[in-house]
């Protein structure tokens, strides 16, 4: 994991249009962006992530701040793009004549191929939460934003973010699938699977 100094260096390199700067930022932050967007936009996560990064590339000269601030800025863009893509995807679904994809793969199959089985499963459990809790959990746990930054991304008060995170985590802890999964996994690893 790059240090803050390395990320700051990558940021200015990226701002100047250097490829290696974007490579560092992408490597470090894209998985979290994609997972967060999976929860916000479902199937449209990949499109939304591409849109997010392109907008970052376009608007980077307007961003001033340290790597921590960049994280917040990035996820704010991601949220907007995710909501946009979700809307667009819904509109597309209303025009079935426009696409050939009659047999689209199940969401799980696509996500599993990208994020891996366990992570896709975990994201699925988070998606089962009420939206505000799901987003708070993702931004706090996966994106690693602090309460204040999460509040800015979501346009909420910090207190509301803390409560949503707490409720989301409690609900996940009580989710029967979550409680069962741990046991199954122990079992599987003992069998050497």
């Amino acid at each position: 994991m790059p240090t803050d100094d390395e990320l700051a260096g990558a940021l200015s390199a990226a701002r100047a249009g250097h490829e290696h700067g974007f490579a560092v930022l992408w490597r470090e932050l894209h998985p979290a962006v994609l997972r967060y967007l999976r929860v916000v936009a479902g199937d449209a996560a990949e499109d939304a992530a591409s849109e997010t990064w392109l907008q970052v590339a376009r608007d980077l000269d307007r961003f001033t701040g340290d790597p921590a601030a960049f994280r917040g800025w990035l996820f704010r863009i991601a949220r907007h793009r995710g909501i946009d893509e979700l809307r667009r995807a819904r509109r597309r679904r209303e025009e079935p004549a426009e696409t050939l994809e009659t047999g689209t793969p199940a969401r799980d199959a696509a996500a599993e191929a990208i994020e891996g089985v366990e992570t896709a499963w975990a994201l699925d459990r988070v998606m089962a939460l009420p939206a505000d809790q799901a987003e708070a959990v993702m931004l706090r746990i996966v994106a690693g934003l602090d309460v204040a930054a999460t509040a800015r991304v979501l346009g909420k008060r910090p207190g509301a973010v803390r409560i949503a995170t707490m409720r989301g985590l409690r609900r996940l802890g009580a989710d029967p699938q979550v409680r069962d999964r741990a046991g199954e996994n122990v079992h599987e690893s003992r069998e050497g699977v």
Partner: protein
Amino acid sequence: MRPLDALLRAMRTWRDHRHGLDEADRLAAGGRAGPGSPGLDHLLDALRAPAAPGERGGEHTVAATLAAERRRAAKTTRRRGRTPASTRTIVVSTATALVVLGAAGTAVAAGTGHLPPVVQQRAHRLFSALGVPAPRTGPPSTAASPSTAPGKPTVATTRPSPASTATIAVPARQLAWCVAWRKAAGGGHPMNGRDRRDLIAAAGGEERVERYCGALSGSPAATPAATTSAPGKSGSHRATPSHPAPHATTPSHPGGKK
């Protein structure tokens, strides 16, 4: 006694609440939930797992594309005295086509099966996203709404003009089609119907797609045969020039949404 009970209860509730909030903060900071919440640690670990191959592939292609986009945006922001759209189109398209083709060589190579399918999908998605701003060939509209980064004060910058956006959109879009086409041909995710029609139209027929894509990527079509391509809709040989009108999507900026 009554008021005291009420107060004690209120304090206890408050304490539980505080405790819950602190616990959530602790978990967010990487703390373990422990055996009290079986499975929760497993779930959080899975959420935070290191990048899967599908999440980190295509790094070079992506980085090159983003860097090119950054340089393009910087150029269009700086250049305020406008040259005629036609001149700008030629200059920008020549410069950016080289960059995009260089980068996309990798992306199209990905279509030949050198990379996992999800990486191909990534490349495809990224390149198709590149072409999203609606190209226009007419004079650039003066209503270039300056949008701000979210939460930042408005800075007087010009948006990249639609005309110059179009020039990068064309090769990127076509390359994205080719990546998607080859992915579908290789038994992967079926291609978006509208893109498929546009690609066939641009190539001048379904049987010419392979050659078209080969020429576009600068490499001879060392690819899986197109015979196994997505089913149906082989017609629609529209005689469009090689710059078919992309989908009318609007350029997107987060500032315009709040």
